[in-house]
């Protein structure tokens, strides 16, 4: 196996293992910290794909922003560690069988499907190209995303604020 492949699988393992920690941990602080591995690992996968800009943004926004915000929210919430989140799991055996079958189905399909392969990945700077695309072909989604964010922002404020009247 090439070194690149080995590194890729190590990163993938990091992502999946951290994600499993997030889901299965009984303590919400551990869950929050485990997100670090997932977010950082995904940034690594972007690097593999030659998407330098997206990888940097992933680090800045997810690791630097969202994760810190989640940790703040968890830490500042009063007595959150006292709440034991037990993820009561009912029907483990049938669940495992279904998941196993699904995994087998997806695995078989993925390995037999002729995927449209990308040309060789060029490890070149992409940010200029992304900027161009945002103002040309992808102008509409770019603008739409801003309206989505505006609506989400207003909604968050409305839902979170205290009632002033009455």
């Amino acid at each position, binding site marked *: 196996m090439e070194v690149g492949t080995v590194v890729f699988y190590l990163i993938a393992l990091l992502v999946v293992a951290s994600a499993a920690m997030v889901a299965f941990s009984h303590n919400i602080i551990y869950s929050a910290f485990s997100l670090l591995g997932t977010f950082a690992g995904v940034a690594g996968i972007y690097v593999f794909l030659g998407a330098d800009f997206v990888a940097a943004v992933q680090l800045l926004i997810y690791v630097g922003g969202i994760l810190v915000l989640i940790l703040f929210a968890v830490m500042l919430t009063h007595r959150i560690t006292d709440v034991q989140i037990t993820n009561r799991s009912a029907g483990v055996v049938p669940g495992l069988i279904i998941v196993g079958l699904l995994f087998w*189905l*997806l695995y078989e*399909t*993925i390995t*037999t*499907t*002729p*995927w*449209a392969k*990308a040309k060789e990945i060029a490890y070149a700077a992409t940010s200029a190209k992304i900027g161009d695309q945002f103002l*040309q*072909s*992808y*102008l*509409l*989604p770019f603008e*739409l*995303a801003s*309206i*989505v964010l*505006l*609506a*989400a922002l*207003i*909604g*968050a*404020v*409305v*839902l979170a604020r205290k*009632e002033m009247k009455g």
Partner: protein
Amino acid sequence: MDLDNLASLEYFYPEIILAGAILLVIVLDLVIKNKRVIGALSILGCLASLGATLQLYSGPSGFLFHRMMVLDHFSLFFKIVALAATILVLWMSFSSREVASLHQGEYATILLSSALGMFFMASATNLLMAYLSLEMVSITSYILTGFLPRNRRSSEAALKYLIYGGVASGAMIYGMSWIFGMTGSLDYSQIHAALFQGQPNQLALFIAFVLILAGFGYKIVFVPFHMWSPDVYQGAPTPFTAFLSVASNAAGVAILLRFFFPGVSQLGPDGSWRFLSGVEWPQFLLIVSMVTMTLGNLSALGQQNLKRMLAYSGIAHAGYILMGLVVLNTEGLQAMLFYIVVYLIMNLGAFLVVVLVANATGKEEIDGYRGLAWRGSAVPAIAMAIFLFSLTGLPPLAGFVGKFFLFAAVIKQQFYLLALVAVANSVISLYYYARVVKVMFLDFPEASDGRVELNPGAATLLGLLSVMTLVFGIYWGPLVAFTSQSLQFFTK
């Protein structure tokens, strides 16, 4: 035509006006003290946008913004539906005591944003746009569901909706990534070309389609993506529940049809669509349709809360609408469009009566409807009877004509089992709809039951909706002409 960004603006007025109205409402909400003005202003914005949309209807079709979205009769039809629903719901909100206690500016803003998202759902021809627009509608819906302050049920409903929505859109985007992986493109026409020229793996395609259907299906509310709907319908402010039940459903149908028909099927000369060979799609939808309507109707039987009952009836109606998809021809699709319009009218009407009764009694349970005809004005009870019988599909009401077209399309293609199940379901649904009518007319009110007041605004709207339900039940020609004209996809 295939226009670039600047040239597209000329055909983009409905969206620009609506986006302008959204921004205007946010700003004016800070200045204007009288909150009714905000609602009136939002309606005005929608009407202006509607005018622009109708004007485009007689104009040319084409791709806009580098093939990100398409302008054709089909997308314009669903824009008109979304706007009509928004206007009627804003109108309905005037008479809702529940909505009066909310922040009007934000309520109107988010409702209009949701309508804007539906515009893009109807016209997206790119998986990226499809995803973004769907998320826009979803996010605004989560917000409005949890909009009632200090209301545990509303907050719980919003959280449930958010979690189900997150899972559904996660599944959908995973399916989209499979499509992208197989075809190397996000653009519908390129996906179409790649799938029909190449030799795609049929199983992989089927899996991808099922995953994508999870995202679309949770908007249309069919089984097994329906679990959120009863709780959300019950918890959300009632006018918004009405909006969710008609507009969100219609937008889901729009995005589904756009993807599965011009996207991955081919139109034959005889008006029948040919799906990718080897993918047993119609059979799959046939089963989904039957299960959806049966489960919806059977669950509705025992409901005491009217909003919950209408939620299950909404699931059943999603099943009826899906029947039009199974036959894979133009006739079926046209019947679907017709049914969407009719369903919009009668369901909004039913929710309006729920709003009026809740205003008077604060109750949404069926005992709040006891002797409704003898408590003050008899108009709400009579109108409710019309809407409920129309939902059942009894002649001479619009719901009957809608169902007739759907059944006819199915029977002509010899899907007898489906038609039989649908008829049996209509009979079941008669039981729970008629139960409400019985309570309203044959039971006597008790002294504690409040009188139902009817303000002029609500009375006009109620009259309008019931007259339309009656008129389309007798004289459906213009609506049929409009829906058949609207079934035009622009693909080249």
